[in-house]
């Protein structure tokens, strides 16, 4: 009976909506700006005639009724992502965000049959060739990424499976896009810069996947709206709450548990709330032997939390308020070898941040205004006994833009991108060699021996960015021009820079698009680069160029092939000591784990070295993506050929050598399919060329230290064996009146292959052995959704 009433109510609602639509669509649809798609039954794949589809926020957006084949067409000319609502009798309503690069694609909407609950937030979007003349970026629905085998239900960890991304050892986080350093790529959530993407370097991402609506990765050549990064760009869009009723969900895995809820609020708004806490500490505490010299006084644990409120006070205005943050802490004690009864060696690491942001969107005719102010606190602390550093930052920012849309999708947009803050540093450590000191001699120019120093500093810095961008589309589609320019002021280096950028695309018959892009990307020096005293650091920059072709093929196949070439200038590199990423001073990890860890930690904790802008970098390569998505299955093959090189201090290392994460060949094949109504299975296969490392060419004995020291061979001239890994995932969903329950089992490295991630040697370097990667690693989790 209740199901009948619900169906009847839905039918009435649809009828009313259809009437509204007929009135609203008394206008001609412009084919150049239309959004086309099809509404299907998520279970059977059958089209749903009569489904109501509306675009845009509020009640004023264009609407359409799906025809007999389930297809619809919406006239919608505003740039950027668009929210689409789909409603049909006997189906759960669905709200989805169509990413800007998928606007011209055929949007596939899969509605879940209404089983008596209001579930059905599964979103399937068919990827398409971008039509807004943007350079090649890779955009995926969060659902297909979250259920990616090997990702452990974590959307952001799947970025490494995309074209242009290097594999990071040991399953750690970090984004190396087109051979750039992790610090060269910026990540934004709803326009707010995120300082730390992963808990503990990759254990889990900072934002629960279920609360992310869209993920877009631009390995390079992004537009003028974003700056201060000479590598790539990752933009995340969080999921707003729903307004009809409150829903609760929770998820638990072997390492953490989370709860989330969304529902209606005051003034017709919607809340979205999430909280997550890890219990790695309990697992490790149980696993550590009682007689171990190592003891966790605070085992690794992380929190993250999210709060978002969305409201539309008028049909033309949308407001949102959000708070999100993350906190990671670990403290451990390690007994030393001293015979004197003494305190153990204590290490403590904390990385945390919080962001408070607001957003206002206002539409006025063809104008769209967006304002996003934000503020936050970042804290990075690492202490080893009485030495270490604490870095506390209080950043504030403002992003504001205005877009004027014209016919055929042409637009002009401009905006400001301000960021300022207070940077506090407390540092107590032995300084590295610096100009005027003779490395290893113990004397500097004043005849003073290096010693433990305490440094306390406070800086107020302001970065300002102003950008202008436009899109001209010729009627024929054969020439789309998207020029942009960005003017930046970097407070730390007190310099103005100009970054012109241009993307040209041609839309050819048979859904083929060709794109060419070139641009300059400046990046300011980091405050961490000045820890050890070079106040004269300037910005570095890259010149990026790419050419790509994208096409839609029969059988729901889509493909893109992009060639890229980057040149990087003025990179800050170590010029005095040997503590560069090369670890050329004879470290046992010249390349491999040590160097990669230094790269991953560089932005948060800096480099224990004195740097100058004398480094160079260059990269080139090809990215191939072949993707297929249907109602029941999805998958892609991503192959990247890439060569990335660096040069350091020309006086020490003339010429180029491979970047520590240079991986010429990276291949990822991933797919998942539904098995029946409730089961889904998938697999991911990854292959990557082994990372480079510096071989040992000789050895001598240091009698003072009573240890052998290696003599480095040619810098990063050898490579680890190639990496290969197979991951499997299976999940099952139970649909019940009280909600849905999904159980997943994700097994990484099912073949238990002992991949080499670094090198180690015996005491006199006469034998080499590999540091092995993760063994077979199962991850199991349970997710409940209303």
């Amino acid at each position, binding site marked *: 009976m209740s199901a009948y009433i619900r169906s009847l109510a839905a039918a009435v609602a649809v009828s009313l909506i259809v009437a509204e639509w007929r009135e609203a669509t008394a206008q001609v649809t412009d084919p150049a700006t239309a959004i086309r798609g099809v509404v299907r039954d998520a279970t059977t794949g059958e089209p749903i005639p009569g489904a109501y589809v509306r675009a845009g926020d509020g009640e004023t957006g264009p609407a359409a009724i799906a025809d007999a084949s389930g297809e619809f067409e919406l006239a919608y000319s505003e740039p950027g992502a668009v929210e689409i609502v789909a409603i049909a009798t006997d189906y759960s309503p669905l709200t989805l965000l169509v990413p800007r690069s998928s606007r011209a694609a055929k949007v596939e909407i899969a509605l879940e049959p209404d089983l008596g609950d209001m579930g059905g937030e599964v979103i399937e979007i068919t990827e398409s060739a971008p039509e807004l003349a943007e350079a090649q970026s890779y955009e995926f629905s969060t659902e297909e990424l979250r259920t990616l085998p090997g990702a452990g239900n974590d959307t952001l960890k799947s970025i490494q499976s995309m074209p242009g991304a290097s594999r990071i050892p040991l399953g750690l986080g970090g984004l190396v896009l087109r051979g750039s350093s992790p610090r060269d790529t910026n990540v934004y959530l709803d326009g707010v810069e995120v300082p730390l993407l992963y808990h503990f370097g990759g254990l889990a991402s900072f934002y629960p996947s279920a609360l992310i609506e869209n993920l877009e990765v631009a390995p390079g050549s992004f537009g003028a709206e974003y700056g201060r990064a000479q590598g790539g760009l990752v933009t995340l869009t969080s999921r707003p709450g729903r307004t009809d009723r409150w829903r609760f969900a929770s998820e638990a895995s072997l390492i953490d548990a989370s709860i989330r809820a969304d529902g209606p609020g005051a003034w017709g708004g919607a809340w979205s709330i999430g909280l997550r806490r890890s219990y790695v500490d309990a697992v490790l505490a149980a696993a550590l032997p009682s007689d171990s010299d190592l003891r966790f006084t605070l085992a690794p644990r992380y929190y993250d939390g999210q709060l978002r409120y969305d409201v539309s006070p008028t049909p033309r205005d949308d407001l949102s308020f959000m708070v999100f943050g993350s906190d990671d802490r670990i403290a*451990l004690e390690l007994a030393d070898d001293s*015979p004197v009864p003494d305190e153990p060696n204590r290490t403590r690491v904390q990385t945390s941040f919080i962001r408070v942001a607001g957003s206002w969107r206002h539409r006025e005719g063809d104008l769209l205004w967006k304002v996003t102010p934000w503020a936050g606190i970042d804290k990075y602390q690492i202490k080893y006994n009485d030495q270490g550093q604490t870095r506390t930052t209080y950043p504030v920012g403002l992003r504001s833009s205005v877009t004027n849309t014209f016919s055929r999708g042409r637009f002009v947009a401009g905006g400001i991108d301000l960021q300022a803050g207070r940077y506090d540093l407390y540092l107590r450590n032995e300084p590295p060699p610096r100009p005027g000191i003779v490395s290893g001699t113990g*004397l500097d120019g004043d005849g003073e021996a290096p010693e433990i120093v305490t440094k306390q500093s406070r800086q107020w810095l302001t970065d300002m960015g102003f950008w202008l961008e436009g899109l001209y589309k010729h009627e024929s589609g054969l020439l789309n021009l998207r020029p942009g320019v960005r003017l930046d002021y970097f407070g730390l280096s007190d310099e103005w820079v100009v970054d012109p950028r241009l993307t040209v695309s041609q839309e050819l018959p048979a859904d083929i698009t060709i794109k060419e892009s070139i641009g300059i990307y400046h990046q300011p020096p980091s405050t961490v680069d000045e820890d050890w005293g070079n106040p004269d650091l300037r910005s570095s920059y890259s010149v990026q160029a790419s050419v790509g072709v994208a096409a839609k093929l029969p059988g729901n196949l889509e493909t893109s092939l992009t060639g890229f070439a980057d040149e990087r200038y003025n990179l800050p590199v170590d010029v005095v000591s040997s503590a560069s990423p090369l670890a050329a*001073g*004879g470290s046992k990890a010249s390349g491999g784990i040590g160097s990669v860890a230094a790269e991953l930690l560089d932005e948060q904790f800096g480099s224990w070295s004195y740097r100058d802008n004398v480094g160079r970098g260059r990269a080139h390569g090809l990215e191939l993506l072949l993707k297929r998505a249907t109602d029941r299955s999805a998958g892609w093959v991503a192959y990247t050929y890439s060569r990335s090189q660096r040069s350091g201090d020309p006086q020490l290392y003339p010429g180029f050598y491979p970047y520590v994460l240079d991986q010429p060949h990276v291949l990822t094949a991933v797919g998942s399919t539904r098995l029946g109504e409730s089961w889904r299975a998938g697999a991911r296969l990854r292959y990557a060329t082994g990372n480079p490392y510096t071989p040992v060419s000789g050895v001598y004995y240091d009698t003072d230290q009573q240890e052998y020291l290696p003599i480095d061979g040619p810098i990063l001239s050898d490579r680890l064996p190639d990496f290969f890994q197979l991951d499997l995932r299976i999940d099952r969903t139970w649909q019940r009146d009280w909600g849905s329950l999904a159980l997943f089992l994700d097994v990484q490295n099912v073949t238990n292959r002992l991949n080499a991630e670094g090198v180690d040697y015996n005491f006199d370097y006469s034998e080499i052995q590999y540091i092995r990667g993760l063994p077979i690693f199962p991850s199991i989790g349970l997710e409940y959704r209303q």
Partner: protein
Amino acid sequence: MTRIALLLTLGLVACDSTETQPQYLIEEPRVLAIRADPPVVDLDSRADLTALVVDSAGAESPTTLSWRACNPWQFVLDPVADCGAEDSLPLTDATLVPVDVLERFPPPPDTGPGEAGEPIAEEGCAEAVPTLDLPVVLETQVDGETLTAIKRVPMPAPGSFLQRTNPTLDELRVDGEAVPSTVAPGREYELRATPRTASLDISCEGEARVLESVSVHVYTTAGALDDAVIEVEHGEDGTQYADSVTWRAPEEGGEAKLWLVAVDGEGGVDWRGYRLDLP
């Protein structure tokens, strides 16, 4: 240090290393130690150099030693490339003469001792005495194998005063007794070796002046050690704290050589060798 600690922590989590031959086990010709006498040499003084070189059986090798001093203003990463024949000063009589080294390698224009201002006497612990390390490379051939070793001999900045002596090791104690002539195969023995207190220098630990710490490295040609270093430290009241290591004698008969190399924090070195018979 913090960075190293973090990387070590990462390493602890990540490493899946298998055991390799331990450093304490002598199976190939080795240079085990170099001693400068005195261990810290003044500008207008000289230091005699000796070395402990053993063959694959652990016997002290009567080999010819080739000594050379390197450019002290350049960090020696590679004793061949950075301190080759043309970039070094030969020390034909195994004697290091700082004046000769600085004459061969004069200080760079903006760097070097002599600008330290007031002479610093080592009476308080407020300031460390600035020193310049004089790298010395030893090359020798044993059983057809070329061995290379390096030692850095500290030289106080002119005007500074720093007097150091080499430590002197007391006799090794085995299970608290004098070293036995024979040991039982497969049995575990506690080894304890400490330097004579009178041979130790005073060092600064924070603001306190204490007897210096000494690390006694243990090497053997047979058997196994649970730890290869005996740490000797001292409290402010002069109390000596010394740990011990456990040596498990080999199962098979024959002989075992034990070498103890004591190293203090200021370049001081001493060594002692023992032969143990196994029935």
